[in-house]
């Protein structure tokens, strides 16, 4: 008995991590100075997470807008490489995410590991889409006239994502990765109750060659952060995955003011390892641009070239 106690006393005291936001490639605390208590599924204290303010949300939009030119202008190949790099980085930090997901969602280690594995593979899935989506949803149009006519998809801009409330990591990745794959930049509001995997993902993104500001992670009260963002005039689209019906309707109304593209709440917590995520979340945040150019109809003399 006394031997056992001694051993316990000798055990090293662990170092807690201060969880911070991820905005513009940096890790600020909330400008408001506020935090809130995050607990595990049994109500045990896990960490104090930043309670983001409206100002944090606006700062995140500025960061996302600033990053949009570079990210949307990067080659699709380059974006694919970076998304794949995220998968590589996550693979190496799997244990941490398994622990965080297990704590957050009350899962066994093995069930949490399935979630994390699927999340890593989801990055790989979307890494492969960056340079293919244009080939699937774009193409030449055989217009009835002497014109070259080509439709290509382009990213819509700055996208706000309300991450799923339950699936703290797989759900999060499932909504964030498709948005940035095509060149959009994103402000993601982490699961209100389980924000820690999202905040840790920021640390992975920061070391994956992803330019700062492409993904911005905010934690706090979903409604408090989402409301100003839904009304923000420099936001182009909003994914309501993590909103309940009441909030979703409210935000959709606010979003109408500058005609944001809106994705209504739908299940994204699909943890089936082999499930095909489809391309809906890619196309939801794409515009189609069609370019016309005369081909110079061939006259009999050829002079009209």
């Amino acid at each position: 008995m006394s031997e056992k106690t001694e051993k316990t006393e000798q055990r090293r005291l662990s170092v807690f991590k201060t969880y911070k936001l991820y905005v513009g490639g940096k890790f600020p605390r909330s400008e408001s100075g506020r935090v809130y208590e995050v607990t595990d599924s049994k109500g045990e204290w896990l960490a104090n997470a930043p309670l983001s303010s409206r100002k944090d949300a606006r700062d995140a939009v500025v960061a996302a807008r600033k990053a949009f030119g570079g990210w949307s202008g990067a080659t699709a190949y380059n974006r694919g490489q970076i998304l794949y790099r995220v998968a590589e980085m996550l693979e190496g930090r799997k244990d941490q995410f398994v622990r965080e997901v297990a704590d957050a969602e009350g899962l066994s280690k093995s069930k949490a590991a399935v979630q994390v594995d699927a999340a890593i593979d989801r990055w790989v899935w979307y890494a492969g889409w960056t340079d293919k989506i244009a080939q699937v949803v774009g193409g030449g149009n055989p217009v009835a006239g002497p014109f070259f006519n080509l439709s290509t998809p382009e990213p819509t801009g700055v996208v706000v994502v309300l991450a799923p409330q339950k699936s703290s990591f797989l759900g999060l990745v499932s909504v964030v990765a498709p948005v940035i794959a095509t060149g959009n930049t994103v402000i993601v509001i982490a699961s209100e109750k389980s924000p820690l995997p999202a905040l840790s993902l920021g640390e992975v993104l920061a070391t994956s060659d992803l330019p700062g500001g492409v993904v911005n992670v905010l934690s706090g009260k979903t409604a408090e952060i989402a409301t100003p963002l839904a009304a923000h005039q420099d936001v182009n689209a909003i994914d309501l995955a993590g909103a309940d019906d009441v909030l979703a309707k409210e935000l959709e109304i606010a979003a109408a003011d500058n005609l944001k593209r809106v994705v209504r709440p739908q299940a994204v917590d699909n943890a089936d390892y082999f499930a095909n995520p489809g391309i809906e979340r890619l196309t939801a945040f794409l515009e189609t641009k069609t370019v016309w150019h005369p081909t110079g109809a061939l006259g009999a003399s050829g002079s009209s070239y």
Partner: protein
Amino acid sequence: MASAFEYAPAPESRAVVDIAPSYGLFIDGEFTEAADGRVFKTVSPSTEEVLSEVAQAGTEDVDRAVRAARKAFEKWSALPGSERAKYLFRIARIIQERSRELAVLETLDNGKPIKETRDADLPLVAAHFFYYAGWADKLDHAGFGANPRPLGVAGQVIPWNFPLLMLAWKIAPALATGNTVVLKPAETTPLSALFFADICRQAGLPKGVVNILPGYGDTGAALVEHPDVNKVAFTGSTAVGKAIARQVAGTKKKVTLELGGKGANIVFDDAPIDQAVEGIVTGIFFNQGQVCCAGSRLLVQESIQDELLDSLKRRLSTLRLGDPLDKNTDIGAINSAEQLSRITSLVERGEAEGAERWSPACELPSAGYWFAPTLFTNVTQAHTIARDEIFGPVLSVLTFRTPDEAVAKANNSQYGLSAGIWTEKGSRILAVANKLRAGVVWSNTFNKFDPTSPFGGYKESGFGREGGRHGLEAYLDV
């Protein structure tokens, strides 16, 4: 070469690559000797130094490799696409990691400048695997219906001009779609394919999924002939392509052929001359002109002929020919003595038929296989050098007066692989491009390649496309 200043030698280090004195065949995940024990030597074309001795696959080895590929096919094709994808992503990454080593190796075995292997071949090789890796779990979206199935065992025969890149063009889409492969590299450039075997090992690729059989034409013929091969993919000469088309007649083998070319590079009078000159140089002197899609026929509008040729000759005088490992080298060695003699005889024929030959002052190294950049003027469409593929650093210059004439001359070829158009006028580019019977048309650029972009020929330049979404079709049962 009269030059205002000389360059100091800047050789890339050979130390980055370790070439073994001998290599076996790569069958079922193991290096093995040929059944009949035959070997052949591979040399560095710039020095004629023997680099290594390589096992030469015979009929029995072909059979062994096809059986290994068949055995591996069942499991490989049954893997979820997402798992196949991850193998290919691994391969892409390992190629990126080892790209300097592979670039030096390729330059040694092929003779092309390090500048090209380092900046063109290797980045494209990695990108090709990366691109097709992404398709492996997205085939339902590729436009071939739901759940398209692989063909089975692919027999692939590749040329020596871009050894590792052609391997990537063949293997990446084949594996992504769930096929297994037996690949024969060219007899003069087997080494990078054998190094690729090692990359497969590092990536943990299941045994038998990739098999590499160095050998000569008879090895390739045996592979094409093998009854248990479901798919034949060949890049090389039109003559061999036709022989393969005859060989597979009456079988169920699916075939894609990427063959010769005699690309027309058309320069209109409003073209930006300096850019056009760079494009012409890239078009015919990239890889010593040993490129199937080379712009080997320059069609220049009569009114700017003198100005353009003056510029072009001035530019050619600045090209640096020599040690392929030197980072400043523009023109490397011809790949083999055989190819050198083919180029030499066609050039002699050009002179004999009355075309005017010109080369810049250019000192050729005493050892190795070399040919100076060469330009022919006063060329007519009847000349052999305007019709036959030379596959060397030799440009035939013809002229035209009207766009229609340019199109007619460009299309006056048994081939239809590539073409170039140089003009500031967009509508002219598109109108001319519409009329050209060629699989790839470059406008105000030349010799651009990308894994997302389909490549392949019209007419006797072959059929099927490699690269892009289109490149999947060659390996799917659709």
